[in-house]
Structures are given as C-alpha cells and as structure tokens.
C-alpha cells in the first residue's frame, strides 16, 4: 500500500502543478471594469484604497453597468468605487466577494449595501443564481463558498469552467441588458415579478433567519476593517415588497451591535421614465438617484439616519 500511496501522491502533485500552471496562464486578463464584465472578482485589485464598495443584487450591479453611470456613482460618493454586487446576488455571494476584497489587502471608507428583502428569502438567490462560471478561480473563494453552504457541485462547476473554451476565449463584454417595457397594467406585472423574486412562496422564517445571520457577518466584517456601513433600500416600482417589515426588524436588532446608516429610498421614484423595468433604474434614473440621494451618503458622513 505504501507503494500505491507514494505513486498516487506523486501523480496528484504532478497534475495539481499542471492545474496551477494552467489556471495561472489563463487567469488575470487586463482591461476589465464594472461596465464590461459580469465578473466581480476580476475587479478586485490588490492593496488599493476606495471611497466605497457597492454590494447588492443586479439592482446594485447595474448602477455601474455603463462607464458613465459608474462615473456618476463615483462622483456621488466622492471617490473611487468598486462595485461587487452581482446578478442573482443574495447576501452570501456578497459576503464571499467582500471577504476576498479585504483579503487582498484593500481598504474602503464605506460599504454601500443596496439591500432588498428577497436577498434573504431563499437559497436560490444565495447559492443558485450567482454566476461562478465567469469568475476567476481562487482557492480561498472556493473554500469560502463551501463554508457558506454552496453545494459541492456548484463549487466544482466554478473550478471546471476555468478549463472550458467559454472562459479561455473570454473578453470584455458590455453588460447593460436591453430594456424591458413596463406594461400599462402594472399590477399583474408586479405580481409576476414578485413571484420570480420570492419563488412563488411565502418567506420561510428559518431561511430568512439563516441569511439574516449572513448579513450580520457582512456588518461584522466591515466593522472589523474600519469601514462605515450604509444600508440602502434602492428605488423600485414594485411598491412595498414582502419582507420589508421583517428586514426593518432585523436591522433594528443589529443596531445594538453595529453602527450603520440606513436609508429607505424604495419609494422615492414613481416615474417610469427612470426605470428600464419594474425594479432596475435606467441610466437617467441612476443619474438622478446619484445626484439627489446617493450623494447624501458622502455629504452626511454616513451618520445613522432614517
């Protein structure tokens, strides 16, 4: 058996070396920004200072979907910004990306988390939707994903996709999606959108509590690295969404342990011309949001407020 284990170890080491060499050779392309890649890990530099890190779902991601909208966000927040919000991003992927951000020696004045209740409402948004195939492979991130409950199959996909043509051929892509029309009968469209966001089911207490704890980890991580935290309910045409009161109660619980500012701007816009669908701002909406609301964060120094 010793002979077998020795040979197996040598074989494993040789192939691991090949894997590392291959991953390194196809790993760190240049020229990616928030507006030309869906990847978030590709945006994370090393030992850099930022004014803000944006977290959230696609609603936050698209704030930097065009070069000019990202510039508007940076202007509003008063300095360099990195947007780590991802499509399909529940709390868990945001936590993993933020942890990697700090692990790379980066610093940020504040975390601006554009948070919605649906991000804490299902495993689907926390483990199922985030696109790991577009992210460069980082062993620390893979291990963090496993620690945070990602299925092993998804973590294997994260690894395997680095050896596939779609990754090897990747280049900058425009991420701004085509606009969707907002129907005249908004009520049915709202219900359909809520069905998608909440998996056609009421919010499960245990699931909300589970991902509420992940939110607490985000707050703790930011505090540990001396970053101020700002939680924002971004504008939406969906009205008062399920879980809003539950989220408010959760944030109240966390006020004892962590200092953070909270802005509920979910109802500040009702003009359809500012949206490209029911819950994503278009470039005009982003510009207005940045100048009228986001700029208050930097101006008010992120003091706790309503």
């Amino acid at each position: 058996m010793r002979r077998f284990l020795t040979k197996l170890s040598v074989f494993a080491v040789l192939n691991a070396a090949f894997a590392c060499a291959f991953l390194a050779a196809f790993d760190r392309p240049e020229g990616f920004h928030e507006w030309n890649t869906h990847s978030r890990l590709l945006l994370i530099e090393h030992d850099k200072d930022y004014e803000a890190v944006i977290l959230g779902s696609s609603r936050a991601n698209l704030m930097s979907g065009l070069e000019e909208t990202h510039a508007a966000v940076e202007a509003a927040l008063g300095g360099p910004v990195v947007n780590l919000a991802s499509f399909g991003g529940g709390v868990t992927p945001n936590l993993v990306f933020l942890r990697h951000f700090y692990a790379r020696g980066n610093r940020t004045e504040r975390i601006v988390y554009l948070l919605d209740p649906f991000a804490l409402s299902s495993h689907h948004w926390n483990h199922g939707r985030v696109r790991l195939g577009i992210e460069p492979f980082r062993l620390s991130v893979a291990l963090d994903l496993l620690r945070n409950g990602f299925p092993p199959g998804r973590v294997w996909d994260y690894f395997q996709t680095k050896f596939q043509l779609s990754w090897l051929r990747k280049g900058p892509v425009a991420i701004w999606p085509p606009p969707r029309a907002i129907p005249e009968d908004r009520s049915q469209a709202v219900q359909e959108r809520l069905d998608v966001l909440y998996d056609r089911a009421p919010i499960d207490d245990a699931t909300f509590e589970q991902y509420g704890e992940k939110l607490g980890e985000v707050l703790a991580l930011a505090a540990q690295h001396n970053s101020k935290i700002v939680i924002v309910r971004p504008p939406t045409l969906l009205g008062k969404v399920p879980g809003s009161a539950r989220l408010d109660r959760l944030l109240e619980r966390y006020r004892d342990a962590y200092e953070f500012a909270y802005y509920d701007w979910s109802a500040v816009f009702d003009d359809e011309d500012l949206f490209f669908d029911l819950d994503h701002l278009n470039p005009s909406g982003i510009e207005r949001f940045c100048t009228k609301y986001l700029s208050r964060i930097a101006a008010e120094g992120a003091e706790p407020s309503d």
Partner: protein
Amino acid sequence: MLFNSLEFVVFFPCVAFLYFAIPPRFRWVLLLAASYIFYMAWQPAYILLLLASTIVDYAAARLMESKATQAERRPFLYLSLCANLGLLFSFKYFNFFSSTIEDLLNALGFEYAAPDSHLLLPVGISFYTFQTLGYAIDVYRGRQKPERHLGVFALYVAFFPQLVAGPIERAGSLLPQLRACHDFDYDRVTHGLRLILWGMVKKVVIADRLAPAVNAIYGAPENFDGPALALATVFFAFQIYCDFSAYTDIAIGTAEVFGVRLMRNFRQPYFAASIADFWRRWHISLSTWFRDYVYISLGGNRVSVPRWYINLAVVFVVSGLWHGANWTFVVWGGLHGLFMIASHVIGRTFSPQRPSGENRGRRVVRQSVRVLGTFVLVTLSWIFFRAASLNEALYILAHLFDGWSDLLTHEGRAAVLQIRGLTQFDFAVGAVGIGVLLVVDAIVERDPGADVARWPVAIRWLLYSVALWSIVFLGIFGEKEFIYFAF
C-alpha cells in the same frame, strides 16, 4: 448517490481507506453500512424495500435448506417469486398493465377508468430483485447452498458497486468473495482505478455530451428530417453503450478495489457479427440470467423448432418489458427476438458454402459487412428503446430517409448542426469520443489480453493524465443520472 458526483468522490476513498484499516472480520459490516448509506442517498424510505427483499429471500432459502426434494422446496420458491415479482409489479408495472386494461376495455366499448399508482420507482429494483430471485432459484435447484450469515447475505443483495444497475451477480460467484478476506493488492487496486477512470470518461465526456442532441431530436422528432433523426439514433446507440458500460466499468472497478471481482457485462457489443453474437456481448449478466432462469426453464432449444422460436420470442419480449413499462420496450425486445429467429431461418435455408482457402481480404470484407449489418439492425431497434411512444418510434422510422438530398447543400449540412443542444464543438467532441471508444474496443477485440498495465510507466501516466484532464476539460456535469437507473 451517483458515481459521477462529488459525493461519491468523497464517499469511495473514505470507505476504501476504512476497509483496509479495520480488521478483516469487520469489513462486511463496513461494506453493508456503506451500501445502505449509498442507497439511502436517493430515497431513504426505500431502504425498507431492500430490507424486505433481503429478509424474504434469506428466509425462503433457509427454509428450503431442510427440504430434500424440489417439490418440498417449491412453496418457498413461490414465496420468493411472489415477493420479488410482486414488488416489481407494484412499483414498476402496475400503471402499465392498468392503463393497458383500460385501453382494451374502452376499445371494446366498456367504460372503465383504471386506478393509478403514484409510487416512485425505487432505484435498482429491477436489478436487486433479479439478483435475489436468481439466488432463490439456485437454492431451489440445489445448485447453491443457502447463505446462513444474514449480514453477508444482506451484503450480497445490497453491495453498493452493483446495487442499482448491475451487473446482476450469481450467488455462487459473489457470496464466497464477500466472505473472503481481501488484503490490499497493488495490481488489483490500480486495475480497478483504471476501470473507474475509463468509465468516467465514457460517461461524462462521451455519453453526456451526446445526450442533449438526442433529447432535443427525440423530444420533437416532427421538427427534424432524416439526417437529424439518423444522427440522433446513431448518437443514442453510442450514448446508451457509453452510459451503461461506464456504469459497469465503475462498478467493476470499485468492487475490484475491495477485492471483489464482478462479472463482465459488455464485450465490445458493436463488433458483433450477428444478433446472437450481440447478445453474448451486451448486458451479459442480464442475457445470461434470462438464459438460465427463463429460456432453459421453457425448454431452451431442446424442443421442436416452432416451440424453440416461441421460447426465443417470449424471452426477448420479457427482456424488453424488464427494461421498462412501456410498449416501446416490448416492441424493442420483440424485434430482437424476431431478428434472432430470422437469422436462424435464413441460416438454415441459405447455408452458404465458403470456399476453402478463402483469402484474408475477402474474409475481412465479409466480417465487416456482418458487423455493419448487425450494427444497423441494433441501431434501428434502439429507436423503439428511446422513443417516448410507439407512434413516435414509427414516425422516426418512417421519416429516417427524408431530406438526405439537403445534405448536398451547405445550408442543409449547417441545419443538421443547428440542433438545440448540439454545437459544432459538441459534435466534434462526440464524434472523436465515439472514435476513441471504437479504437479501444477494436484493440481489446483483437487482443482480449491487452492491458495498459504492461505499458511503460511514463506512457501510462500520460494516458491517465489525458483521461483525467479530458474529464475536467470536456466533462458534462450536473446531476446526469445513468440511463439504466430508470429500469
């Protein structure tokens, strides 16, 4: 738990490590516990069915032990038959027969709505019930002494490498191995791991790569012309071969690590020169099971010729039905029976005299024609195996030769490759994979003793690395079950 899953990649080494670490007298306990954990990874409650089958056949065999004559043993054999076939009928065939009776009565003008069973088909039920039935029949016939150790017998029923998709083992072969002590053997373990690696390549690189195109075309055959239908059918022929033989290779390789030799289940089936030869090479454990327990019991070929043909037809129809509760499987099995009978009739009627001293070239050509002809017949019959209904199968068969002239144009050729689920890359990988498979099979067909173990170590390691990295680069993952899990 699937063989091509990360759970198994963790499960198997852990079990193997513990197996060689613990005292030999406890190894059957470890393997039995591991087998139950393996099975319960699907549907925990269905372990009760496995336990029920185990206890019934253990008891039936023990009760037969004290009986001197077959007549005295018969009631206990019937107990085993009723229990095992009853399980199969309840979970697998109830809805099929129920709806058939309903259709028949409705066609005769009677109003009848048959009851529906909503029981989920337990994974592996067709395999383990046949394995335990075979055991009971062998005990009844006096060919097998009943196993007295309940734990070892339970392991015989539930041994995880072959539990859910075979090979269907004979008690005389497997029980002694499960009782024996197997020390770590370098050659045996490395051979087992090589089989596992090759099985994984066949499953995730070839079979699962071919599947989307087959599913797209067989899912809506009315949207496709002859070339696409033919492509899907040929792809399916290799998909099912790679899928099923992959499972078998992984099963045999896994068992071999533990020192247990399972029977070979495939022997280069697409190199068969006749239908009879095909069934000596395809799913060998099932075909020999039907031969020994059904065909011979009916009299085999030691009867009149018409009765012999009936025996063949019955065995193949029942074999088709074993695969699934659908008329398509019955027709598939029946077709093979028909081919067997026809080949015998033709052979008796037209026995060609081969000239003595026939040159090698002509022999090769003749053999190639026979192999190709057999492949065509087998592949055409796969249409019934794969189609969702008889109507669909007949549609595909009827339109197989439509639109071939379109292939003469660039647009026509491009249209074949624009099938949803089939990119040019998939087509290339699938085609190369089939080519590699046929080359490997051809090598083994020519030299059954060919063994990679005898090659220089650098070449061997390069080959293993290529296989491993082909799985990483080209493997399709994501809950892709093996086809035979559905039987």
